[in-house]
C-alpha cells in the first residue's frame, strides 16, 4: 500500500514541505530576534535578504500543499477499489482514524497559508516593514500544523489495511448512523437552507460594508468562515442530493467525479478561494492605521473583498442552479 506512487508522492511532498517550513522558521527566529530596520549593519542587510528566502519558501509551501490536497482527494477516489466496502473517497478516508484528521489539517494549512501570504504581501508594501515581527511569529504557529500533518498523513498511510472492511459514504452519511457526518446528514434540509441563506446574507452585508467603509474586516472574515461551514453543511445536507438526484446520497466527494460533470470542483474551488480571500481581509484589517501601509491598504482590501464576494456569489449561483435544475423533486417532502 505504501508503495503506491501517489502515496509516495504525497509523503514526499509532506516531508519536503515540513523541511522547508523548518528552514523558514530558523531564519524567521533570527529575524524576530535581531531585526532593526534603522540599522545599516551587515547583519541587518543579511536579515533583509533572508526575508526573501522565507517568502519564497512559504509561497512554494503553500502551492505544494494546495496541489497535494487535490492529489490526496483524487488518490482517495482512485484507491476506493482496493478497500472492501469503499465506493468513493469517503470509504478510503474511513479506513483508519487518521484519514479525516489528515484532510482537516490539510484544509487548515491551506487557509493558514493563504492568510499568511496575504498579510505578508501587505507588510511588504510598507517601507519600514511594520508587521515583520508579528508575521514571523504567526508563521511559527503554522509550523506545528505542517509537522502534525506530516505525522498524521504518514500514520494514515502506514496503518492502511486492505483487510479491514470500511464503511462507505452510504453508511457514514446516513441519518441513522452516529457521529458528526450523520448529524449533518440528518439535519433537516429546511434548517440548513436557512442557515445557508442567513450566512450568505451576512457575508454579503459585511463584505460590502468592509469595501465601502473600510471597517469591519474581522467581522467579514468571521462571517465568511461561518458561511464556509454552512456551505459544507448545506452540500452534505441537500445540495449533493440534488446533484445525485437521489434522496439519500449525502457524500461530499462523489460530486467531484466525472459522472456528475465535475460540478464538485465548480462548487468547492470558488467556496474555498472566497473564504481564503475573506480571511485575508480579516488578517489585514487591524493594520489599516499604520502610516507606512496606508497607501497600500485600500487597494488591497478592495481587491480581496470584491474577489471574495464575487466568488461567494458564484458558489451560491452554482448551488442554486444545481438545486433548481435537478430532476429530484422534494416539494412537499422537505419544503
Amino acid at each position, binding site marked *: 500500500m505504501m508503495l503506491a506512487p501517489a502515496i509516495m508522492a504525497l509523503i514526499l511532498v509532506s516531508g519536503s514541505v515540513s523541511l522547508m517550513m523548518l528552514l523558514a522558521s530558523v531564519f524567521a527566529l533570527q529575524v524576530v530576534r535581531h531585526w532593526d*530596520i*534603522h540599522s*545599516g*549593519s*551587515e*547583519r541587518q*542587510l543579511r536579515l*533583509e*535578504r533572508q526575508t526573501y528566502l522565507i517568502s519564497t519558501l512559504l509561497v512554494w509551501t503553500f502551492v505544494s500543499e494546495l496541489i497535494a490536497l487535490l492529489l490526496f482527494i483524487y488518490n482517495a477516489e482512485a484507491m476506493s477499489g482496493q478497500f472492501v466496502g469503499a465506493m468513493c473517497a469517503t470509504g478510503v478516508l474511513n479506513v483508519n482514524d487518521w484519514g479525516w484528521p489528515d484532510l482537516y489539517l490539510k484544509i487548515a494549512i491551506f487557509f493558514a497559508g493563504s492568510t499568511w501570504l496575504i498579510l505578508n504581501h501587505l507588510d*511588504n508594501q510598507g*517601507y*519600514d*516593514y511594520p508587521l515583520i515581527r508579528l508575521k514571523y511569529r504567526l508563521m511559527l504557529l503554522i509550523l506545528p500544523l505542517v509537522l502534525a500533518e506530516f505525522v498524521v498523513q504518514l500514520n494514515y498511510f502506514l496503518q492502511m489495511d486492505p483487510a479491514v472492511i470500511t464503511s462507505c459514504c452510504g453508511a457514514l452519511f446516513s441519518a441513522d448512523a452516529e457521529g458528526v457526518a450523520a448529524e449533518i446528514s440528518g439535519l433537516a434540509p429546511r434548517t440548513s437552507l436557512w442557515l445557508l441563506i442567513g450566512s450568505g446574507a451576512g457575508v454579503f452585508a459585511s463584505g460590502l460594508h468592509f469595501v465601502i467603509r473600510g471597517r469591519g474586516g474581522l467581522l467579514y472574515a468571521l462571517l465568511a468562515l461561518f458561511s464556509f461551514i454552512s456551505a459544507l453543511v448545506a452540500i452534505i445536507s441537500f445540495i449533493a442530493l440534488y446533484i445525485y438526484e437521489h434522496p439519500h446520497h449525502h457524500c461530499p466527494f462523489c460530486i467531484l467525479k466525472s459522472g456528475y460533470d465535475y460540478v464538485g470542483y465548480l462548487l468547492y474551488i470558488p467556496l474555498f478561494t472566497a473564504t481564503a480571500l475573506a480571511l485575508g481581509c480579516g488578517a489585514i484589517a487591524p493594520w489599516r492605521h499604520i502610516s507606512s501601509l496606508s497607501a497600500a491598504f485600500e487597494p488591497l482590501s478592495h481587491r480581496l473583498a470584491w474577489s471574495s464576494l464575487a466568488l461567494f456569489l458564484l458558489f451560491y449561483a452554482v448551488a442554486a442552479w444545481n438545486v433548481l435544475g435537478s430532476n429530484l423533486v422534494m416539494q412537499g417532502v422537505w419544503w
Partner: protein
Amino acid sequence: MKIELQNVKKAFNQGRSNELWAIRGVTTTLEPNRITCLKGASGSGKTTLLAMIGCLSRPTSGRIMLGERMLSGLPERFMTEFRRHTFGFIFQRLNLIPGLSTLDNIMLPAYPLAPRHHQLLASAQSLLEQFGITDKGNNPIEWLSGGEAQRVAICRALINNPQIIIADEPTANLDSRLSTEFMGLLERLRDLGKTVLITSHDPLVFDAPCIDRVIELRDGEIV
C-alpha cells in the same frame, strides 16, 4: 533637489578580523544641476561613497537625504524602486549585456516599471537620436565601437528619465579624444537640468572646465 550626507560611514566585514572602514564619516551637500567630481586615489572610498549616494548600498551609519526624503534607512525593495526613477548609472566597464541588441540594452532598466511597450521603444529610439546612434538600434552590442558603446551606456542611464546621473570612472577605458567627447556629453546633460556626479582619478576629468565642484577623498574622509 540637493543631496545631503550626514556623517556617513561604511564598514565591510564588520566584527571580523578583516574589518575595514571604507568611509569614515563624510558630511557634505551636493547642489542640484551641477557636475560634481569625486577625486581620489584607488582605495580612497570614492566608489563606495558613490554607491551609497546612488542607492546601490546602505551606509553602516549616518544619513543620506535627497531633498526632504531619507534614503539611507530604506530596505532594498523601496531603495530600488526609488533608485529606478531617480538615478541613472554609467559604469566604469560600461557593463552592457552581451548577446542583447542596443535597444534591448537601453530598455532593460525599464522592465520592472512595465511601461507600454511602444512607449518604451519610442523613448529608447529618441534617445538614440539624441546621441547620434540612431541606426545602431538593432545591432548586437558586440559590433559597436568604444565611443558608440559609451553613448549606449548613457542612453541606458537615461531611459527612466532620472534626475541624477552617476558615472564611475567613465573615462578609464577611453582615449583622450573620446574622454573629451564624453565630458561634452556630460555638459549637455547638465544643461538639460540633470545633476551629475562622477568619480575619477584622471586629471582630464577633474581639471575639465565643465566640472562645477571637486570633492577630494582620502582614506574614507574628505580632505
